[in-house]
């Protein structure tokens, strides 16, 4: 094994160890994604959403989460997918995101097509993020987990919503 190969291998191993743990998986347009379970506060059905003006298109509005007003975001719209009318399987996952720059904590609801399960991801299941080419932003992806022959995309939710840029300029 060359030195370079060794370095790459060990980095992979380290990355795998860092990412191993429990994930909540959900479905979005036929793909399966994973969220670190520690970020998830609760899972609800679709609530009555109040639209907020002057926000970006993926911001559906705000909801009343037991007396707290929190924003609700549509992950499909954020990922450039088509809007889908909510059905009985549509879920709102309430997550606590941490801003990577300021460390501020924000609660927000994320609307997904369907919640699947909680899976334990082991280090050896994890492939580091492949490069899809120049037109795909892989910053949002922590890594890919292969479990039972299926690929789950592990999302870096802090990076997606942590900065809290929800307001239209």
């Amino acid at each position: 094994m060359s030195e370079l190969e060794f370095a790459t291998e060990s980095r992979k191993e380290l990355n795998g160890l860092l990412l191993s743990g429990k994930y909540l998986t959900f479905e979005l347009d036929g793909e399966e994604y994973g969220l670190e379970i520690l970020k998830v506060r609760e899972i609800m059905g679709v609530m009555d959403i109040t639209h907020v003006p002057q926000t970006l298109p993926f911001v559906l509005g705000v909801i009343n989460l037991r007396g707290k007003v929190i924003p609700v975001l549509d992950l499909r719209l954020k990922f450039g997918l088509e809007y889908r009318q909510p059905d009985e399987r549509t879920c709102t996952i309430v997550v606590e995101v941490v801003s990577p720059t300021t460390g501020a904590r924000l609660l927000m609801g994320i609307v997904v097509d369907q919640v699947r399960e909680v899976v334990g991801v082991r280090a050896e299941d994890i492939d580091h993020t492949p490069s899809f080419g120049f037109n795909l932003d892989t910053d949002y992806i922590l890594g890919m987990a292969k479990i039972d022959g299926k690929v789950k995309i592990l999302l870096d939710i802090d990076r997606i919503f942590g900065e809290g840029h929800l307001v239209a300029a």
Partner: protein
Amino acid sequence: MSEQNELIGALLDELAAQVMVLEPGDLMTYGEVLSRLEQLAIVCEGVGDPQLTRLAMALKAQMEGMILGESPDQAKGAQDLTTGVALAQTLMRGESSPAEVHAFIGGLGLGAKEPPPVGDEALAPAPAEEAASAPVPAEEAPAEEAPAAFMETSDEDDELLNGFVVEALEHLQSIEVNVLILEDTPEEQEALNAVFRPFHTIKGVSGFLNLLDINHLAHALENLLDQARGGHLVLDSEAIDVILAGVDQLRQMISEAQEANQAKRLRRKFDTSGLEKRVEGVISGVAAPEQPAPAAASAPKLGEVLVGRGVVDQADVEEALAVQAQRPDRPIGELLVQKGAAEPSDVAEGLRTQKALSQPARQIQAQEVKIDTNKLDNLLDMVGELVIAQSMVAANPKVSSIADRKLSADLAQLSRITSDLQKTTMAMRMVPIKQTFQKMVRVVRDTAKKQGKQVRLELVGETTEIDRNMVEKFYDPLVHMVRNSVDHGIEPTADRVKAGKPEEGTVVLSAYHKGGAVCIEIKDDGKGLDKERIIAKALQKGLIDDPEAFSDEEIYHLIMKAGFSTAEVITDISGRGVGMDVVQKTIDELRGKIEIKSELGRGSTFTIALPLTLAIIDGMVVEVGVERFILPTISVAESLRPHRQEYNTVQGKGEMIMIRGNLVPLVRLHSIVGVEPEVHDPWESLVVVVEHHGQRRCLLVDRLVGRQEVVIKSLGESLKDVKVVAGGAIMGDGKVGLILDVEHVFKHHESRRA
């Protein structure tokens, strides 16, 4: 050798820290101290330093005595240990002489175990003095180490220091309040103690934390108050000044200590010698024979009380007093009853009155618990939800169709409890305005003194409660306005005399509830606002063009405008930091209103009406399409459905509605909030006339739902840039309604039109 010395030094440092916090009777620590002292003695002996060894042995013996309970006064024992350890530290550095060591050991009362050295007689009287002077080197010695010590504070130290800072600042505030009470009633023991004790605490803790300049100053002030407590000194205005100056200085020093610690830099040292000299000056005034305190300040005599009540007359009392002079053991009441001059019940009543009078209105402080405001907010959120859940259950058609008397009674009970709970939770956010008002006493005093004016501040309605968050925000503007009243309102004494007014000016600060609002009134009997000068200034600044078109009140309001410094108009004192425009801004933020009344030569009254709480807004709920919005009722003037012919489009000015002869711009709310409305034509729908800072706009909405009080919720950090929305509110059905920010709705409308 040097290693040994280092070890001794380290041992001494540890000991110093331990004995400083030594609690009498704490055997655990006693044991630790003893073992350290033993180590010390052994090491010292090894080094061959006879003085240190002797001292260590003596301290060890002292500690043993304390553990075995042989030494009667444990507190003094602990004090001696502190002194001894400090002495050992100075000895290490060669700053103390063997004679001092000897004197100290002699003072411990263990001298018998020591071979009496030569010259014992000469040193014999020393111990008493030594005990007093020894702490001085002890305090000075670590001073040189202080900077170094500060560079490497541990987390624990941080915590200690932060605790100290918070506590000390609170103490200083209470000192301030009580000192001002003392100014009126210098013999009030309770207030004296209330000033003395916090100084004592600050002294103690700052000493422990090695903040020696703070320690010194607090010590000096404590001494001063101790003299007053002992009755050796009456606190005159000079003494009060010195104490207040000391409080200010301490506050600065304490804040500096905290800042330095946070920034991990060296603490700036303060020169307090000037102040300390002043303190000494006041204390040494003791030497000059002070007038004994007049007894009038204490309780009135029973005889006087009874005469005052018309029960007996002066002659009876004098007669009884004459009898009492011979029989001092007989109370005067008894004598009066015996004489038949008074009924026992009268005397009892008199005694009660006397007792009440001798206890000057104690400030009864409600028992308090400090709670994190986040917890309070959470509680409020939950209670709000409870109310909604309760009303949803009650409104459920299935539940309401059950014709059961028990159920409906229970539901009614539940609804009462929830609404009580909500009120109580709301009330938890409220604090009496008293503390804020009392701070104004100082402001008035200082401002008046600086200008050589005589001003009295009257406080009315101090118990009026106000939202805690509001108090904080309102503090600076209030200071500004009170200062203004003293500064610009009240005339110099000479002018007042000329105008036939009392020499002493009066500022009345009052708080009261009025129609769901808290009013704070600042009233002075000064010269009043000069309308002509305000007009002249406004014309010059281009703020108005036709003074005739303005009412008096509107003219007065001009002083609240930015760029209209009252300082330039009325006196030349400036540099206040906040101008009246900032006051106006704060009042706007708090959703309040200000009213100005003034009479030239008679004084001015500023009345500020604030909502009871910041947490609740009185709102007008409107619907646009499927969404509900809330407009603050304070800015809603009226609502109406215009006739078709009242709708105009004015070239270059957009859509207008003619209301009673005035053209008011039309704002289509739906286009601002991005909602599809049910109706587009104003004459088919409804307009709400909204006012902000004198500007009026018609908001086009679909429906007016009604007036409702709602709890304001923040939309959170990520949506704070949505300017047209001031916040959210949970509506009766549990959904979120948005509260509109009228100012930004207007601005948004302007920018879209432009």
